[in-house]
């Protein structure tokens, strides 16, 4: 799994950081998402999915990766 963030859509609501601060952070400058862990471990996949669902601006998506 790869987490993809479209920073042009991000509204800096911080829902992703709230979901898992090990996966996401926000820029202190403009609040925009920073993906800390683009390739989350299997145990973090649920959090990644939840962050995508909760993101208000549709800035986050997941890509499948060949392993």
């Amino acid at each position, binding site marked *: 799994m790869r987490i993809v963030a479209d920073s042009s859509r991000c*509204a*800096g*609501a911080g829902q992703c950081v*709230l979901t898992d*601060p090990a996966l996401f952070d*926000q820029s*202190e400058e*403009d609040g925009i998402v920073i993906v800390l862990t683009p390739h989350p471990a299997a145990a973090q996949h649920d959090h990644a999915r939840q962050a995508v669902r909760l993101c*208000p601006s549709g800035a986050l998506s997941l890509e499948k990766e060949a392993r």
Partner: protein
Amino acid sequence: MTGQPDVTIPVPRRCPFAPPPEYQQLREQAPVARLTMASGRTAWVLTRHADIRAVLADPRFSSDRSHPGFPAPQQGQELASGFKFSLISMDPPEHGPARRGVAGEFTARRMQALQPQVQQLVHTHLDAMLAGPRPADLVQALALPVPSLVICGLLGVPYADHEFFQTRSAVLLRGRVPVNDRIQAGVDLMTYLDELVARREKDPTDDLIGRQLKAGTIEHGDLVSLALLLLIAGHETTANMISLSALALIENPAARRAIRDDPARTPGAVEELLRYFTITDLTLFRVALADIEVGGQLIRAGEPVISLSLAGNHDPEAFADPGRLDIGRDARPHLAFGFGPHQCLGQNLARMELQVVLDTLLRRVPDLNLAVRFEDLQFKDDAFVYGARELPVTW
């Protein structure tokens, strides 16, 4: 449409613990309903969680309050000419950069770093309340001053002026208020902040207003509007959530014990309380910029749309047994902070404040109780932001 409930928007809330029953009727019989508003005009009214999410995430629904089709639920909502709403009335491409210009001030991490300060404020206010006479009004003793102090500190607005801005903010957020009073309240607040920003331009301070001036990317008038939006949104909303949450926990001893015994449950409880009350039910207004189908209904360009977030947050398709306050459920997909690119900028401040206040209140005042009968409590049934007018408590 046949069998559509005969409902006028806004529908008054009759009980803090349940949405108006008309909301369920609408959701079941006409989830995208063309209804008359108290102003006499009509609007599309949404009551399903999924439809509300879809509309709020869709940039073809505009937030521009100057658009002639923008919903006007009540008559007499006019404000002084030149009154600007700042972020909440902006669309792309203007909105994104404007929001980014201030979003760094409200990041989840930054709000968490304010926690010790908020904790101290809560202790100080509870010390004073517990040392004072019983009963006390929890709104004045705790719920209103704590978030007011916090937002004042962030913005750089002197808290000494709190009576001035609290009374005028309350007028702006009320539904039924003489139009001249509303205009005057808006003018008073704009004048006050205009002067404050002008002082900061000469004598910069290290706060949100000062940092915006230092960045130099926002005009004077826009900064005044932004400061007004943040000041109002930053105190009145959280204050209402604090008092309603305290009331809910007084009335639900099991939830109260669960939080007190295990503070790890508080963040989940806060999300559920936000969902359950949805005090900002009447704030999600849009106007369609194109012909768009929502929930199988065609909405035409220029038509107004009202998303009733309280109805969406009590949609059984999204939350099982929605009428039950269940602090263990996953309530985070709630719409209490809205959805889409305009979702509440201060949501992580509100969450942190609510968590600290509720944890501390339940721990320090374990026998908190109402000092009046529940039936005698008065609520802000006509306001755009719902809450208790006062909450007399004893212990």
